[in-house]
């Protein structure tokens, strides 16, 4: 576990939300532009971040096109086993999986473009479908974290007192666990019995389980800085003015404080998604994330480990795509952060 993000105002991290203030020192900025337009203008100048964003979008687009590749090119499904089948390579029929269980490597043709796995399943097809699962888990979990973390952080920071103590206590409990350890513990327990929340039942092999686990685990990483900001913002004049005009507390929170933490959320979103994708891969690798037969990059790497010498493509291919996704998102996220506020240092470290 590395260094953790500190609350706003403490050493090691600084959140500056007042964009005009933040931009005051930049003589290149034109007066009169809104903070968001200024951000967009700055981001467009950061070619490296933009390129990373494009790479990520290409990966997303490829994964969304998975059914097209599966149906019209590979002519198989991500679950279909081809253990006894043969494929033509240079006109010669070759076993997809040989008698000793070694799968075929990349054929660079329609069928088994990136080779097969130990069950004779098309790696390319599984990679694209697995990407859909990995990206969906990452994105939905990050949005879940933001939704819950934002509300908790705002309430704790604005109301202070008992609400703050209770929320902070709960967040501290989650914070106290190493991320992967907590994820594996929850994932293993829920994969067997599923989850029953009132009338809602989530099956153990549902994608909702890793989404929920990852979303919950990362809540403190968002809620604590938001709380810090809410604590500072509640003392600002515009909030006092709103209160003086007779606004209710909840209305003040959501109409006055919330818009002022929006830039933090924008910075956090790509970083949270990247971390959620990485955590999903870790959990799936350890058998506590996405459950078979659903593919994900993490499960694909786990399935390939035992053949890392005789069939290295099983781990290299999903590993490379995982690295590309996370790296591109992180670079893009850093670019967004720099564009919003060059002085801010936001990291999610665990």
């Amino acid at each position, binding site marked *: 576990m590395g260094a953790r993000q500190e609350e706003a105002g403490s050493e090691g991290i600084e959140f500056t939300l007042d964009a005009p203030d933040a931009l005051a020192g930049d003589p290149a900025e034109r007066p009169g532009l809104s903070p968001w337009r200024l951000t967009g203008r700055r981001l467009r100048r950061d070619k490296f971040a933009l390129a990373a964003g494009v790479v990520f979008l290409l990966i997303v687009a490829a994964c969304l096109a998975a059914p097209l590749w599966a149906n019209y090119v590979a002519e198989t499904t991500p679950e279909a*086993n081809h253990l006894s089948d043969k494929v033509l390579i240079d006109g010669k029929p070759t076993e997809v999986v040989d008698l*000793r*269980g070694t799968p075929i490597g990349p054929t660079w043709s329609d069928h088994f473009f990136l080779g097969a796995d*130990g069950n004779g399943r098309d790696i390319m097809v599984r990679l694209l479908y697995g990407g859909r699962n990995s990206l969906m888990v990452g994105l939905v979990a990050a949005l879940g974290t933001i939704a819950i973390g934002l509300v908790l952080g705002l309430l704790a920071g604005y109301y202070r007192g008992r609400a703050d103590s209770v929320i902070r206590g709960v967040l501290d409990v989650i914070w106290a666990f190493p991320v992967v350890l907590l994820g594996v513990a929850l994932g293993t327990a829920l994969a067997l019995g599923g989850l029953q929340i009132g009338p809602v039942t989530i099956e153990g092999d549902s994608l909702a389980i890793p989404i929920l686990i990852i979303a919950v685990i990362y809540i403190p990483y968002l809620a604590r800085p938001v709380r810090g900001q809410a604590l500072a913002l509640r003392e600002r004049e515009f909030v006092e003015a709103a209160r003086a005009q007779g606004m209710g507390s909840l209305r003040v929170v959501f109409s006055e404080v919330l818009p002022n933490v929006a830039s933090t959320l924008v910075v956090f979103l790509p970083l949270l998604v990247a971390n959620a994708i990485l955590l999903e891969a870790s959990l799936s690798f350890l058998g506590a994330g996405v459950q*078979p*037969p659903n593919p994900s990059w993490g499960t694909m790497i786990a399935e390939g480990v035992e053949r890392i010498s005789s069939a290295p493509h099983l781990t290299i291919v999903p590993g490379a795509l995982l690295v590309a996704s996370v790296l591109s998102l992180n670079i893009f996220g850093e670019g967004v952060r720099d564009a919003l506020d060059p002085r801010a240092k936001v990291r999610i470290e665990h």
Partner: protein
Amino acid sequence: MTIAQAAQPDFLDPALSYSIHGWEPMWTAYMPLLTYKREGGSELMPGLAEEMPEVSADGKTYELTLRKGVKYSDGTPVKASDFEHSIKRVLNLESGGAPYYEVIEGADKYLSGGKPDADISGIEANDKTGEITIKLVEPDSAFNFVLAMNFASLLPGDTPFENMTNDPAPGVGPYMFTKTVPNREFVLERNPEFTADTIPGVPVANLDTVKTVITTSVPRQTQEVIDNKLDFMQEPVAADFIGEILDRFGPDGSEEQRYKEFTTLSTYYFFLNTKTPPFDDPKVREAVNLGVDKPALARLFAGTLEPGCSFLPPEMPGYSEELDGEGCPWGDPSQPPDLERAKQLIKEAGAEGTEVTVWGDNIDPTPKVTQAYADQLNQIGLDATPKIVDGGVYFQTIGNESTGAQTGFLNWFGDFPHPANFFFLVDGATIQPTNNQNMSNVDDPHINKELKELGREPDINQVTDRWEALNEYLVEKAYLVPYGYRKLSTFMSERMNFADCTPINPVIYNDYSQWCLKDE
């Protein structure tokens, strides 16, 4: 020599150990009244008993006499009463092997009494004459094999009623434990009290010392044996290395042979819960038996699975080779399945699209097998989804009636070469709401009746044909889907005399005491 295991044996106490990791070393350090012939095969011979037991006409009384002058590795003389003490430890410590000895008269009272030193009325031992008499509640055709299990190894009468793993008890055998460091290593050294005359037919150990180190990584073990840094690995070689090892060290390899595979007394099968739709319909069960692609599944085991159709494995009395060929009612297991007929049967049964959950644990290669099996069920028209659960809770989960497990992965490695040791898995009398082992819930009057009658027959040779017929009947009824027998391997360093010193016992597998170096 130094050898490796991937995990610490469950126990280094013969009353408790119930794993290959424990049984192999234990077999060289402890001796029951009966044992297996050392040159391989599954034939029994007297161990600490002078002769094979005399069995009464009703099959309920076994009389044996202890060998004279035998001493444990610490020099303590072996006494007849040590046998009763050893069985008491098995029962009292709630060993996994305890159910095998509950057939002894008075065992139930001993267990319910809860007093370790209490008497087991069905065992009479005379230390002066060495005579041991065992009375059973009912005849048990496999009891000779039960007497030959490691659980029944004799230990000194003062061995405490506690797990002796950290300080293994003295025993009778070619080796003795001299050092144990849990999760790191344990050492066997030649037992000075054991001579060629101690147990005729059980030779003294060839090597002075066998040190076992715990190395969790199987690929690392494999590489170290290839590099001659380890002399033997207890685990099957890592799948990643099998091709290279066969090419170099296999029977037809380019270098001197150091690797061989042997078929175990095991059956890999899928259970079909006959109490739950859709497998309560015989047509669906037949379709599944027709539709399972056994040669394809064998590839998932990196070639270490021999495709089969029989429930009883090769070398087991009652096994029929014909059943594993064209005699199989569901098609030759070495050939692709008859998918069209399977689909037709599913249609006729009206089971097309029926949702089926396929259970498997997370221990390799089960997840792969479970997914391949689910895919094969989908190919014949069912709507199957694999469900992988942790290996630690797998059997409790699927063995619980409330789970309602429809079908899934199972295997059974025989504890001894007697068909009863396999057929209890389909005995209607063993069905229970929790911890059920008859996962298919087979409750067939014919099977139940035959098992009851055959269980009373002390001489297996007299009833081999009936076991064979019962095996065929079980397969024809399609209560389950046997698909093969597991092969394990012996892989050694180049300094070992592989050709002459690696006999395989079908139950225990490797006999450390007979290993030898090339220059010996």
